[in-house]
């Protein structure tokens, strides 16, 4: 349509279009394979062009914040697994750091190293799903299976350390449920070596695939200013060319003792901040994660001895009146916990700031003007987990 409206070439006749289409409302979801969960988007379209998009969320709202006011601090850990269920370790970590800061608990160094290893392993697992399902959204089925192959090993590593494969509840305020079993660190290192080789397969399979590039470059461009205005964090913000990673700019745990790069979008295939950039930031982050894990394993084995992974704390934790905010870098962005305590064994108020919730809020702003087929590519590139949007 736009081609016909532009100035006609010499020797051709100008065609005046007198075709009006009726605005059409299209409902996507809540059951739709490309919305990654129970997201509903009502799209108004003029032909193939989207004129407005309204997301509806809350289908699996459980009010985790209210639950937090009704259970003790330790009892809430399993609930944290269930907001971003693809990165349960990172959720455990964010919550535990908030409680520990409020209660002034001293975590043993060995627990901190293992926490970092688990957080980075889970980041790889989460990005592998993002990689696989993004290919699926755009019609490539094979990358999904490749991604799940390595994720399976990652999950079996978690199974060995805590017995669970998806909702781990491995970290508790004060430390960890248990130490790593024998041989676990060696297997983690083996995983890293194999993963770095497999990563090249993914890169060859999808990243440089011509059809994939055509579907994602210059699509869903988010300029840096817009990304900040909508509170985007994580790969979505970095994809727009903003170098901001909490692990680097406000290091927690021992992130200041390991070296790693922060990949940012550079507009390699098109414009800075397009879908391809966001996708590639995630891909590049996986390699940084294995780099961090190797250093963590080395330092952990060199500096600590097996045994102590839990701080000394009372059986029922009571925290004197105070308030804290702790943000950690989850695979999807900043996961924040704002905790208000009042001296009892339960939180007075716990606010969970989920990155997916904020990242999703940009959808009504970037979808208008794009094609309906691109809506799937754009929503997929934001990489949301609805469990966290709805909490």
């Amino acid at each position, binding site marked *: 349509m736009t081609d016909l409206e532009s100035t006609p070439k010499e020797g051709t006749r100008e065609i005046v279009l007198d075709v009006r289409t009726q605005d059409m409302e299209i409902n996507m979801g809540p059951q739709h394979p490309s919305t990654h969960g129970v997201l509903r988007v009502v799209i108004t379209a003029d032909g193939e062009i989207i004129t407005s998009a309204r997301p509806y969320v809350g289908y699996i709202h459980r009010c985790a914040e209210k639950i937090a006011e009704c259970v003790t601090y330790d009892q809430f850990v399993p609930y944290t697994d269930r907001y971003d269920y693809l990165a349960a370790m990172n959720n455990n970590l964010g919550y535990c750091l908030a409680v520990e800061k409020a209660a002034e608990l001293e975590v043993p160094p060995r627990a901190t190293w293992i926490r970092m290893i688990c957080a980075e392993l889970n980041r790889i697992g989460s990005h592998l799903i993002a990689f696989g399902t993004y290919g699926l959204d755009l019609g490539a089925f094979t990358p999904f299976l490749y991604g799940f192959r390595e994720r399976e090993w990652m999950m079996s590593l978690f199974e060995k350390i805590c017995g669970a494969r998806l909702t781990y509840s491995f970290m508790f305020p004060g430390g960890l449920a248990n130490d790593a079993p024998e041989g676990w660190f060696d297997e983690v290192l083996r995983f890293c070596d194999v993963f770095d080789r497999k990563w090249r397969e993914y890169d060859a399979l999808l990243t440089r695939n011509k059809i994939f590039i055509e579907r994602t470059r210059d699509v869903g461009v988010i300029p840096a200013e817009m990304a900040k205005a909508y509170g985007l964090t994580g790969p979505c913000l970095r994809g727009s060319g903003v170098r901001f990673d*909490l692990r680097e700019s406000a290091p927690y745990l021992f992130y200041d003792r390991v070296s790693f790069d922060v990949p940012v979008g550079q507009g390699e295939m098109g414009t800075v901040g397009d879908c391809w950039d966001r996708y590639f930031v995630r891909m590049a982050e996986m390699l940084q994660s294995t780099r961090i894990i190797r250093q963590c394993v080395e330092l952990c084995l060199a500096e600590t001895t097996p045994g102590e992974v839990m701080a000394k704390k009372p059986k029922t934790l009571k925290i004197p009146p105070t308030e804290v905010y702790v943000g950690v870098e989850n695979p999807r962005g900043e996961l924040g916990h*704002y905790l208000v305590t009042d001296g009892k064994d339960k939180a007075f108020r716990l606010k969970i700031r989920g990155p997916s919730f904020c990242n999703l809020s940009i959808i009504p702003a970037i979808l208008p003007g794009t094609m309906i087929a691109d809506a799937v590519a754009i929503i997929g590139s934001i990489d949301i987990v609805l469990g966290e949007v709805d909490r």
Partner: protein
Amino acid sequence: MELETIAERLGDAVLEIVTEGTKDPFLVVEASRIREVMALCRDDSSLAFDLLVSITGADYPPREVKKKAKKGEPAPESEVVPGRFELVYHLLSTKTGGRLVLKVRLPHEDAPSCDSISEVHPAAEWHEREAFDLLGIRFFGHPDLRRILCCEDWVGHPLRKDYVFPKEFHGISAE
């Protein structure tokens, strides 16, 4: 950056600098001037808090604050903070990585309301809808103030401390 310096920069819109009883010191800001303060925090090059992390609220009961007695003097009378709703704004600077916590005490006990800051930070739109949904705080000038997480016909605001759990919902018993 020191909190005092930030408070100075924000001028008389800051009512109080709170450093005690919290791990993250914060500023209490006048409710009627929140929009202006937010714009200043974002645009002032020495502050540059360009990313709104979250807006949330809490429902505090009236509480007594005991003051410490100075040596040789009788203990001063304890102060009663009337409560009830407070809004908390978490800001972040992507340039320095610094954080700023601002609070607003809302005057109306049962129908709390505040100016919306969605013009300054579009990110506020969903956060304010969430605060409206879960705490029942109204925002003036919000483009689309509807419930976001609970369904449209939900009764009450779950995060209020006087919230009564429903016995049934659309004929489904919760007991």
